[in-house]
């Protein structure tokens, strides 16, 4: 098994990188919601009004970003980030020229899960 010392830096870089991406998306969508509302799936917007939905998703992104940075229970935070990236990619698959980057983020989130699969919660 990989020792804790050898995973500390890669884990930190992966967690911080994904967290910064999530925090940027959340902050930018608060500042300019019109540029981001279009990425919410139409079927979801037909159930819940777009603006509260975007605010809720932004708050979720902030919470997930802070969780990733904290390093607590990193494998679960990584798994949730991977699910989020998968959801974003699938629901926006028609915008592949934009969301293809999320496939890289999905793999990075899975790497966090792999790095932390068998160790104590704190990196």
């Amino acid at each position, binding site marked *: 098994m990989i020792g804790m*010392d050898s995973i500390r*830096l890669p884990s*930190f870089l992966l967690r911080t990188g994904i967290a910064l991406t999530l*925090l*940027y998306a959340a*902050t930018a969508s608060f500042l300019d919601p019109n540029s981001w509302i279009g990425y919410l799936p139409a079927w979801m917007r037909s159930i819940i009004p777009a603006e509260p939905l975007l605010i809720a998703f932004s708050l979720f992104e902030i919470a997930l970003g802070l969780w990733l940075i904290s390093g607590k229970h990193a494998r679960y935070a990584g798994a949730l980030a991977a699910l989020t990236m998968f959801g974003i990619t699938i629901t926006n698959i028609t915008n592949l020229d934009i969301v293809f980057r999320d496939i890289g983020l999905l793999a990075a989130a899975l790497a966090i899960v792999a790095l932390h699969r068998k160790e104590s919660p704190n990196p």
Partner: protein
Amino acid sequence: MPFTATFIVLSALGIANAAYLAFKHREGKPLVCPLDHDCNAVVESRWNKILGIRNEYLGVLFYAGLFIAALVTIFVPETSSTINRSFIYATGTGALYSAFLTLIQMIAIKDYCFYCLLSALTALLLFINSFFLL
């Protein structure tokens, strides 16, 4: 607007980093360095203060000040031109001080603190970012 968002996110990263160092110092817990260097040798060195204030507390104040000022430019747009101009001087000073502390790590202490290097990088990125706010 995208560069205001990056400025806010970088300031938040700076706050989290400096607050983590301050928290560890208050708790008296040793830092675990991801770089296999002795972070504690750096943060407990004789260079850890300026005017009697520890660098991590100054860092929290610095990044929190930038974070709040960036929010003010959003909620009070008429202040944005003055504040955005002052960001260049504020972040430039922060980046210079961080560069000085990085040189101290290289030359005087001969050891590195990962979190201090991260703060220096954050300060440099904020300085560059501030030019895109004009």
